[in-house]
């Protein structure tokens, strides 16, 4: 039985920039522990860890150094999903207080 402590959940939430309530932290603590236990079953299988790869057998997928204007967004398009903008910029609360 793995155990993800509420303290660890809090740390992970902070790294993931998720605001969690105390209730949620406890709930996720037991849920994440269950998920890890479930995934832990994989360790019982005999798998060559060297062969594990997210890329199948692909290598060297690259592109030539060329400008592709067809995919460039206009400033208006780029900013269209932003909550706040100012003179062509995305606007966020000051990161230095």
């Amino acid at each position, binding site marked *: 039985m793995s155990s993800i402590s509420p303290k660890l959940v809090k740390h992970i939430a902070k790294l993931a920039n998720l605001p969690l309530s105390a209730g949620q932290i406890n709930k996720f603590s037991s849920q994440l522990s269950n998920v890890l236990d479930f995934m832990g079953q994989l360790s019982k299988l005999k798998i060559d860890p060297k062969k594990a790869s997210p890329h199948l057998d692909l290598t060297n*997928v690259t592109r030539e150094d060329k400008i592709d204007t067809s995919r460039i967004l206009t400033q208006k398009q*780029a900013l269209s999903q932003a909550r706040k903008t100012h003179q062509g910029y995305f606007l966020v609360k000051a990161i230095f207080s």
Partner: protein
Amino acid sequence: MKLQPTIGLEIHVELKTRSKMFCGCPAEHFAKPANSQTCPVCLGLPGALPVPNRLAIDWAIMIGLALDCQVNLKSTFDRKHYFYPDLAKGFQITQYDDPFSFKGQLKLESGKVIRITRVHLEEDTGKLLHKTIDGHKLTLVDFNRSGVPLVEIVTEPDISSGEEAKEFLKKLRDILRSLGVSDCDMEKGSMRLEPNISWSLSADKLADYKVEIKNLNSFRFAQAGIDYELKRQKALLDKGEMPVQETRGYQPATKATFSQRVKETAADYRYFPEPDIPPIVLTKAYVENLRKQLPQLPEIVVQELVKDFHLSLSTAQLLVKDPLKLAYFIQYNRQIDAQTLANLIVNKKIDLSHPPQLKTTTETVDPKIIDQVLKENKDVVVKYKAGKTSVMGFLVGQVMRQTRGQVDPKLASQELLKRLQGPALKS
């Protein structure tokens, strides 16, 4: 054991490829309208697929080769996670476990070796502007720079003073410029320096703390910042206090560093392999082909200019520093006296966009100039008369200088000979 200054450097350079690292947006972002050069990839929109720029990879490897590094025949990209407004995706694509190259070195003039830890490729972040608008402190974000190819060069903490750091950085910049892969323009931010500084027992037995200085935009500031920081830390250590591990800024006006209250960042970057980019696998032959494309290192070119054209060390160094000037010199040094041409170029007395104007008056050399040169260089004349005829080149150079290269060096040589073999000079 005695503590010694222990300094390592992290240097970021933007590559001057045409397009960005993982998408086809233009990489040149200086003075462009904000957020006018972005696409789903460099804005980190869901579902966008990054595809690495082959030229950027070649250049990153060439930088490693020029720094005497070993090249990884299998390299991978990784995701580095953190939240900051300049990072649209919530992670930066970089290299963690398998950078393109590692374990290199760069030698200083003294012969001292500075070890290179690694050279890896990543993407630049967006640019932040801090402003107060209507009384509110706000941060403006421009993603034109997001995704520009960025090479990070990391050294071992082998540097022991601000001066050594400056020498290393200048040498590195000259190498990068000679490769033609980056402008290394610090004012435009295409070269960024981050020294880390401590007093340690040795480079292999580091202190329990280190201080990083951020946002240095000149070699002079890097040198002064490092020297200030060494003094500040030494004073604390002498009092029995341990300097705090932190990031500090540098203030040119006071030549001092100051503690930066950077928002607390978790050092837990949760690196994992970038699933969207398959590994880059290279053959030895491919790497050797890149090695063949390396230009001669600037130091070697300087030595050759001094040897082959009798240029002064400083003139040769100035020529080598600027690829355009060097190319011009190499193209035209047969048409005009080499030393004169070099001086004209270095002193910006010649327009590099046109061939040199050869207003050579083959008719005569003003005898006054010959007189003047002989008078001003009596010691050289003595040497000549003692049989050291090789000093003639120097005298011809002086005549060329006086006439700003407007006479035929052969004629100058003949005139000088006539005078030297003629009656003795009146002093």
